[in-house]
């Protein structure tokens, strides 16, 4: 049964269905409806978990980490300034190998102040050791929350389930709510043990020497690399159980594409339309959606772009001093290829600026007419 709901509500349903036991959160636009929906269900006795209304995002993450160590299932959500404020705690969570799932609603980071969608807030946390899923639409958001808990609790890394602020979070779409029993079977209620062992007490996460630090980081790196397989398996199993799967990447019309647009998040939905239109106009355009950003699917990307001549990466984000972040990561992933495509970076949609079909078609036309790479091209409006 499908229901009309916003992306925020979809995430909230995912949290409820996952039988989350503790939510510690702090309000920030455009995340607040998630917080409010969960609070409303808590007061109606429908949530099953307990809401902890904390006094800052940093504390929210701190509380989640601590609770997660006892083995209970926890969730939080934030955006922009809140995610930035949590930065210390994001490293802390990953280092503690706790399976927290956080709903991130992309929003521009100040300064300047703006409230629309911009991926820089979550991408700026790419070094913190979190798994990052960039969701295209409301259904994917709900489904990814459930998948994320399963993945995190298997590999012991926290995950971000990321949607665009306003475009996904506040826009209504029809969403299928999976049945609770099916979710229960897919995601067991309490798979994690209490890390506090009362029979043989231990001091957890205390100071280590340099060599031990090196080794723990090496272990984390290796574990994160192996989580790729787990992520794929879980998604496949989800597909078999619920009839929907998303993969870590999704290729559209790649077989005969001469030029490929690479997108993530809500822009992907618009790009699908643009690519169809361009193909109708006779252009051999392809589209590659990047869903999993961390761990970065380097091998998969190389395989899919094998033989492609031109690639245009649309980044709704910017790393000042370098360029668009998806583009950077992609270039690094493509580097080992014997023959590399031309990769051109397009910056669009920062601060929630609309990225309409026309703009994407302009990007595509520019890409196709291009024989040389240059620095990031800033596309404000069509």
């Amino acid at each position: 049964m499908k229901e009309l709901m916003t992306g925020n509500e979809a995430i909230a349903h995912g949290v409820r269905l996952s039988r989350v036991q503790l939510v510690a959160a702090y309000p920030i636009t455009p995340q607040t409806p998630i917080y409010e929906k969960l609070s409303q269900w808590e007061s109606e006795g429908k949530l099953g978990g307990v809401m902890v209304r904390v006094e800052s995002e940093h504390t929210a993450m701190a509380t989640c980490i601590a609770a997660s160590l006892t083995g209970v299932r926890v969730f939080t959500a934030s955006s922009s300034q809140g995610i930035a404020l949590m930065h210390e705690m994001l490293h802390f969570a990953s280092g503690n190998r706790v399976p927290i799932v956080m709903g991130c609603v992309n929003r521009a980071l100040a300064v300047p102040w703006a409230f629309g969608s911009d991926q820089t807030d979550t991408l700026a946390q790419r070094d913190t050791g979190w798994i990052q899923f960039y969701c295209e639409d409301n259904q994917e958001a709900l489904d990814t929350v459930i998948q994320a808990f399963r993945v995190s609790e298997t590999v012991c890394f926290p995950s971000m389930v990321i949607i665009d602020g306003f475009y996904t979070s506040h826009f209504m779409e029809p969403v299928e709510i999976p049945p609770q029993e099916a979710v229960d079977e897919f995601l067991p209620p309490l798979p994690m043990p209490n890390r506090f062992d009362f029979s043989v007490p231990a001091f957890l996460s205390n100071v280590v020497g340099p060599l031990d630090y090196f080794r723990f980081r090496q272990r984390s790196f290796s574990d994160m690399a192996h989580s790729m397989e787990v992520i794929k398996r879980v998604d496949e199993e989800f597909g078999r159980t619920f009839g929907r799967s998303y993969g870590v990447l999704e290729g559209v019309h790649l077989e005969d594409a001469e030029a490929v647009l690479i997108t993530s998040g809500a822009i992907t939905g618009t790009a699908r339309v643009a690519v169809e239109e361009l193909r109708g106009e006779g252009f051999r355009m392809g589209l590659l959606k990047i869903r999993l950003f961390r761990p970065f699917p380097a091998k998969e990307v190389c395989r899919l772009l094998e033989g492609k001549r031109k690639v245009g990466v649309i980044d709704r984000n910017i790393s000042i001093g370098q360029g668009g972040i998806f583009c950077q990561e992609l270039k690094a992933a493509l580097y080992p290829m014997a023959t590399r495509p031309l990769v051109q970076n397009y910056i669009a949609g920062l601060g929630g600026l609309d990225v309409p079909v026309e703009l994407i078609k302009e990007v595509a036309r520019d890409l196709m007419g291009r024989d040389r790479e240059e620095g990031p091209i800033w596309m404000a409006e069509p």
Partner: protein
Amino acid sequence: MELEALIPVSRISTEGFRTGQWSPRKAYHSEKVSPCREACPAGSDIPEFMCFAAEGRFDEALKEILHENPLPGVCGRVCPHPCQDHCNRSNLEGAVQIREVERAVAEYGRGLPQRGEGKVGGRIAVVGSGPAGLSAAYFLGRLGHRVTVFERQKELGGVLRYGIPEYRLPKGVLQKEIERLKALEIDFVTSTPLHRETILSLRQDFDAVILATGAWSPRRLGIRGEELQGVFYGLPWLSSPSTATTDPRRIVVIGGGDVAVDVARVSRRLYPEARIVMVAPEREGEFPAIPEGLLEAAEEGIEIEGGWRPLEFLGEGGRLKGIRFRRCEVHRDPDAGTYRITDLEGERIEEAQMVIVSIGQVPEWEVLPQGLKQGHIETTPWGETAIKGLFLAGDLVNRKAAVVEAISSGKRTALGVHLRLLGDDPQKVLSEVKIGGGRAVSFKAFLKGTSKRLDRIAEFSEVSRYLFPECPPIRPGKLDPGERKFSFREVKFGLGKEEASHEAGRCFNCGKCTGCDLCFFLCPDLAILKGDPYSVNPDYCKGCGICVEACPRDVVEMR
């Protein structure tokens, strides 16, 4: 996924780190002597018995006192308490009323001393049943000797019975104290005066003879009129107060010592209407008597005048009529032991029908064997004389003339006799059980050995000022002066059981580990090990010294 390996999980205990190696300084628990004990001529282990008394365990407290002092009921009433004058608690809000607690322990404690099984089992004669004689007999009995005490009076006690009045030391109390001694199978032979030759001949039937006959001969003034009727002398008069003078209007007591005070106060009770005045050459406030005695005397309406000495007794028809006094002042040098009276300008005549001269006592030299140098007898610290087999104890050898000094002397003499009979060297052995810098020796240490450092005195711990809440001493009540004039009832009330326990609880127990656990709880490194005795674990003691600071009893020290 094996969770254990993902994050630092630290299980190994830090106990493997011997942080004691950080410093060569280590703390030690070393019990010592309390300053009150050092000051006590009998060497009573006050902190020990205070522990028991504080918990209401009076039987055990009594047993503890009896290790060093056989007459706690007596001392608990009449002792001038040098212990209290050295009490460390006086640095806080007031000395512990040790004497009152001792009295309570003697009152409420039950139990008898045990006669020892002596290897030697000598036969010892003690001449005199005053405090020194009783003390010597007691300790010899505890060591397993057969003791016979000869007493010339009908009753036992010496100065305790015949010198200290009922209102200060009730005869019933004295009797109870003496009864306790009978458990030691001592033979008491009363109404048997001995003198010179009979004393010496005792050495044929006994392995040693201890002379503890005291000082019963009163000093004379040597002034005109001393032979008049109505002139009496302190100690003899106290033994049997004469009421020969009917209704004296004015009574003068010459002297400023404790005997003089007692004489004045007994007179007050015999002659409630008379005007009684104590006159001494010292300034008021410098009388040698214990201040509390003078205070009680003043409460009973006895006048006190200082700075006069009698020149002559004036009579009429052979009876005393008055006394001529001369203004004077006294220069006393306690170290040199000198005492000099200087006359000043001014004379007066005081009317009096009765005068009692109490200016001190000396031994009755004519009763004692020749060969003992008159005036000042040479003895060893344990009373041995130049005459073989003859030992001395008590006022015979002491200048101080206090009951507790006599008890101390009796103890030392007993031990000296015992050691001589064993063939040991009293000098060496007694120096091992000497307490601090005083005269006292510890009988308990002699008998059972001790882990306490008898040569180290516990100092006041400064933090005690702040560690303990103020808790003023409980002073017992006294009989109302109005009533006292007409009765020989005991003037000072004793402490009740709870009061005594409470007062004993104020004792810091200097030098004794009471297991209060302050050092234990305050050690940052858990290096104090509880036990009997407490000790310090050198593996973890970093030598910080907090335990030394913390111990209010100066038991913990740093080396």
